[in-house]
């Protein structure tokens, strides 16, 4: 479990606090999506949870470990983090070295590393680029390597900060289904920061951040079908819900109870068949 309690945080040189008395809980082994406008505090919250900013003592615990200087090393044994900009992620001279670096930090036995690295790169289809330097990669290739590095660590908590934003649709689909199956196997807590409605829909819970405050924490269905909330914080609905709204605007009376793609297809087919 990750627990944030009465967190107040202000960036250096800033007058106003970004978070004031923020409290929230992320249950174990769940996939939690964090959404909200640009600047609402998503990345900052993730960095505070990971101890990458000076986290105020006594405010955050991750699986029972307090996030503070004394516990940083232990905390980092549990965490995998993919940054919003993959350029901020790379430390190794080559793609393979980069994945190896994370494993060395975890004290993984050297003889086990080659297999783990091979598998991690194969998972994201980056095997041919093993010897490439990170700066020689395309944008999507960088994101794939960053994901491979985090997945190879088999962390207890995986934090993804817009980690699929530059993947092609096929690559994004593959990553999301890998995450879904990892979550299915249990043992992994996923925090994914995203603007992608398809990614939000896969999560168990959604946290809606709004100007440094938790506006709502609820299931994706309830968040994405709450029109007032969707408009107030500028979320985008999955395709089926957008189509439903467009149909209603055209005078087609789609029942309010229909919220998923499968339900909408079924209902439309019934209508089409009775008209035909």
């Amino acid at each position, binding site marked *: 479990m990750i627990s944030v309690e009465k967190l107040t945080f202000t*960036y250096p*040189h800033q007058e106003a606090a970004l978070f004031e008395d923020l409290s929230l809980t992320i249950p174990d082994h769940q996939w939690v999506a964090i959404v*909200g*406008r*640009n*600047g609402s505090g*998503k*990345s*900052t919250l993730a960095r505070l949870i990971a101890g990458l900013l000076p986290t105020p003592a006594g405010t955050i615990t991750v699986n029972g470990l307090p996030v503070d200087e004394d516990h940083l090393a232990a905390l980092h044994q549990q965490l995998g983090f993919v940054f*919003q*900009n993959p*350029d901020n992620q790379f430390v190794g001279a080559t793609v393979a070295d980069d994945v190896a670096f994370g494993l060395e930090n975890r004290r993984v036995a050297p003889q086990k590393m080659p297999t783990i690295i091979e598998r991690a790169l194969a998972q994201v289809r980056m095997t041919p680029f093993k010897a490439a330097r990170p700066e*020689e*990669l*395309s*944008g*999507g*290739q960088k994101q*794939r390597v960053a994901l491979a590095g985090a997945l190879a660590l088999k962390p207890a908590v995986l934090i993804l900060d*817009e980690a699929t*934003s*530059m*993947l*092609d*649709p*096929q*690559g*994004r*689909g593959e990553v999301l289904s890998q995450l879904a199956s990892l979550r299915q196997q249990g043992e992994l807590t996923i925090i994914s920061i995203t*603007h992608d409605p398809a990614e939000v829909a896969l999560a168990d819970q959604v946290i809606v951040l709004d100007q440094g405050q938790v506006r709502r924490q609820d299931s994706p269905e309830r968040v994405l079908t709450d029109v007032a909330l969707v408009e107030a914080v*500028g*979320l*985008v609905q999955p*395709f*089926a819900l*957008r*189509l439903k709204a*467009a*149909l209603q*605007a*055209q*005078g*087609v009376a789609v029942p309010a109870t229909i919220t998923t*793609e499968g339900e909408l*297809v079924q209902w*439309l*087919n019934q*209508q*089409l*068949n009775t*008209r*035909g």
Partner: protein
Amino acid sequence: MVEPAVEYAGLGFAYGADRWALRELSTTIPAGQLTALIGHTGSGKSTLMELTDGLLLPTSGTVTVFGQQITAATKKKELAPLRKKVGFVFQFPEHQLFADSVLADVMFGPQNLGANPTSAKEAATAALTRLGLPAALFDRSPFELSGGQQRRVALAGVLAMNPQLLILDEPTAGLDPTGQAELLSLITELKAQGLTIIMITHQMEQVARLADTVRVLDGGQLVFAGTPADLFAQPDLLAAHHLTPPAAVTFAKQLDWAAADPQPLTAATLAAQLAKQLKGGTGNG
């Protein structure tokens, strides 16, 4: 026919010996239109745009931008006039930001093109406001901003220079949904003003809604040039190049109806066609 804004002829580019990122590429970018450039990860899109902006020089073949030809032999200083006409928003906005403050960053472009400080400041303020960046952030270091805020500053910096050709490399990545919608309507407006726009995107909805014409790359080669409607009517071609159709196409395939013509590519057009069938009883209109 109008002169194309950009013409690629037998263009090849290699990052070092035998590392070809583009091969034998020949096509044009029509002036005053929006061209979507798509293709899966590593297909050569960003490289092609760096060649279009003169940041890279061809290994073989030529790029001609507004009549100016660029070859392997072109000297850097010959590219100065080109830079005034072409605005390029990079895939990673951080690569574009450098000044001590947001405002200074965006003012740099217009000043570099000869604007005095007052008018540069006006242009910068207007562009930042247009991109929805709160004025409270204008004096802040661009490196102390969130990812989406940095993207907005990078976009403003290029727009403030009034380019004739605007190159956008995945411009909506990292923008919140409202920011994405606002940017897309800004792009439509700019096109109406006569700008030529090339947009790299992985979002097929954007291609369907905005693009006049599409170029698809795969493994550094051009594999399609035509309209979005043509492209999305060819499922085999899409699959062969690891592309997916817009959500409206995938959704419509699951319905028991005679596929409508033209195939709806967006939620709005699909809803309109369905409404017509459901209310009208028969026929595809």
